[in-house]
């Protein structure tokens, strides 16, 4: 099991009812962790519509999930 610090914004923050949490997971990738947390929190956004950041930079959904990483799930951007 690894320890991941997860942060949420906007729609995902509201659906998770929290801005951040620490999770213990066996997920190998951000995609697997998203599916795991989507089941727990009832996310309506498909994984293909969201993006993920690892340690403050955008990352691939199939990147390896390392112990202690800071992960952020990002809904589609809408600035401006």
């Amino acid at each position, binding site marked *: 099991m690894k320890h991941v610090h997860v942060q949420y*914004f906007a729609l995902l923050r*509201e659906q998770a009812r929290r801005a951040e949490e620490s999770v213990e997971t066996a997920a190998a990738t951000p995609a697997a962790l998203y599916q795991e947390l989507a089941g727990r929190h009832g996310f309506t956004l498909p994984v293909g519509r969201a993006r993920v950041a690892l340690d*403050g930079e955008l990352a691939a959904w199939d990147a390896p999930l390392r112990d202690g990483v800071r992960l952020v799930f*990002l809904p*589609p*951007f*809408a*600035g*401006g």
Partner: protein
Amino acid sequence: MFRITSTPLDPDALRREMLDLRAGGFVTFEGRVRSRNEGLEVRALEYEAFRELAEKEGERVLAEARDKFAVLSAACAHRVGTLQLGDLAVWVGVTAEHRAEAFGACQYIIDELKRRVPIWKKEHYATGASVWVAGRGEAGEPARGIKEKDKTGAGGQSARNPGGCG
């Protein structure tokens, strides 16, 4: 200079930082909260940002604009928090010797900001409903709405032109 701020944007102060006697052209874009989107009456907008990445990505966009266009300087500021109708949500300023480069860089910056910088907005409607606007997901993906369950059903925009300003 790319800035995310929760305090009101001051266009006069922002432009003063950019005045330059070499600049024959100074182009700005001011994105403001408008009263209607997709046929719905908007009362307020709520913006939030993933500040750590937004500021890095915003600086990259500005650096690209300086590389691609012959500009003297380029800057952008984006507000977060709750904004009322008419409030300034985003400001872009570009100075250049000549206008064409300044216009081009200004357009590049606002377009890339909307596409790449992790900022979100929630529209609050006169009906009492509210919805997170879905602008862009993966790079180059067309705008689409996110359906968020709400009691009046005012959601699920099929927005080609996402809400908010500009």
